[in-house]
């Protein structure tokens, strides 16, 4: 396949992922609203909010880094997308997946956060800075159990390629990592709660704690870029967990169903549990998920 054709397939994949991300966000909000006996937003609301944000006539800049913050965040999301194989065995939707892509993806998760930290820091708003320090502190501890789970998988499958890990799980539900390596799955699913940042761990962006954290000063097009990234990131992170632990997807329907339930898992926990303070959540990630991650490595290594 020529590189032009490859790029077109990647863009098609990105388009589908973006729209599914927007729709999924709306569906989840609708479900949460129905739990609270509300009607909730219209399912097409995200497609209305994006042009509204992108078409704001005036905007304010605090300097180059402030401008680059959302750009870094978006390149973090798109970067994860570029290296993520979407459909197992499909030559069209495996993007630019290569032998060590899981390491690159673990790095890219932090890339957007750091870009936002620099950008929001230049805004000069104290709330942004508080939000950043909270967000980075929490995300650092979130990454620890996830990385331990990935190391456990690397030992189990003897590879660092997501494509090969997903391919090794084909041929029946019992081949999924969920059943072959339950400890690593448990550690990763617990750290996933911190990645998606729903209720127990959503202090970083909780509107009524400090006004919405790092994006406090971002508005209009900046916020539009952040929201676009949010839609891509939610799906693509769910795709990561689907590929690593739930057998990957053989077609788009399977991908949509699996990512929905993976994302819904965090929302469900978020609806049920109240919010942690930041020092509680940091300690929480360094207790059970960390121990599970270490045990997962030990079991696979022995």
């Amino acid at each position: 396949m020529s590189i032009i054709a490859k790029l077109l397939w990647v863009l098609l994949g990105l388009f589908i992922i973006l729209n599914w991300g927007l729709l999924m966000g709306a569906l989840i909000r609708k479900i949460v609203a129905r739990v609270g006996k509300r009607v909730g937003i219209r399912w097409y609301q995200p497609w209305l909010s994006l042009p509204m944000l992108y078409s704001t006539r005036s905007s304010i800049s605090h300097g180059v880094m402030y401008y680059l913050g959302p750009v870094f965040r978006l390149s973090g999301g798109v970067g994860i997308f570029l290296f993520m194989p979407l459909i197992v065995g499909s030559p069209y939707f495996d993007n630019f997946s290569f032998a060590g892509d899981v390491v690159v993806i673990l790095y890219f998760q932090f890339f957007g956060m750091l870009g936002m930290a620099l950008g929001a820091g230049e805004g000069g708003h104290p709330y942004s800075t508080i939000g950043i320090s909270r967000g980075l502190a929490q995300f650092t501890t979130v990454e620890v159990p996830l990385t331990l789970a990935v190391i456990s998988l690397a030992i189990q499958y003897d590879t660092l390629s997501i494509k090969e890990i997903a391919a090794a799980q084909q041929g029946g539900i019992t081949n999924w990592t969920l059943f072959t390596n339950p400890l690593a799955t448990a550690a990763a699913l617990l750290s996933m709660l911190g990645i998606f940042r729903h209720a127990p761990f959503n202090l970083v962006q909780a509107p009524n704690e400090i006004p919405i954290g790092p994006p406090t000063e971002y508005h209009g097009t900046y916020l539009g870029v952040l929201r676009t990234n949010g839609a891509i990131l939610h799906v693509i992170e769910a795709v990561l967990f689907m590929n690593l632990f739930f057998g990957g997807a053989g077609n788009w329907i399977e991908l949509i169903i699996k990512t929905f339930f993976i994302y819904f898992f965090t929302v469900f926990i978020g609806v049920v549990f109240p919010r942690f303070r930041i020092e509680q959540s940091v300690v929480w990630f360094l207790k059970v998920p960390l121990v599970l991650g270490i045990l997962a490595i030990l079991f696979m290594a022995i």
Partner: protein
Amino acid sequence: MESQNNNNNNQEKFRDPNLDKRTVISPDGQQIEVDPLQDYFEQARPQVHKPASKVIEKFLNWARAESLWVLGFGTGCGSIEIPPLTTPRFDAYRFGVAMRPTPRQSSVFIISGYLSVKTLKRAIRSYEQMQNPKYVIGLGSCTINGGMYWDSYNTINRLDYYMPVDNYVAGCMPRPEAILAAFESLKKRIKEGRADGANKYAEHFDWYKANQKKVIKDWNMPDYNW
């Protein structure tokens, strides 16, 4: 700089010592001049932003109208009527209305009741931090003619002397249903392209500023700030 010509005679009387020019010494011994009015505020006049071409603007206005982001800023007794909008009984989300915590991200400013002069100062600062296009809803009789506070020494009587208002909701207090109706009528106005308050504010900036300074005695900030 225009912002330095604060033509308010009371400025000296209400001077805020925190906003004086001063010299501070940095940890490595460097002397730094700090002028809070210059350094902490941006001081550019608001600009008139021309709408896009007709067809595009029609689509954008539709998107803006169906996605109203309301600034969570409560003034007066009407602010108690806003929270029920997010509850199962009234549920404004189904009409595309959402609450935002910061002015920069909001497009609708609800002045929910009487405005004391002290609050007016904050309301103006919040309004100016909102980005073009922005819309204002005046809630209750107090924003129309002062209502039961019409002869009060400390509240303003007509809101549209101080910022351009798109919609008024009469009543004391209007019920949440009336606020939902106001959103619907604001949507209609936006879709027709008539809700251009931000540009109106920029065009008649001097008139609005003069009105604001007439009532706000302790004007210790630049004329325009975000």
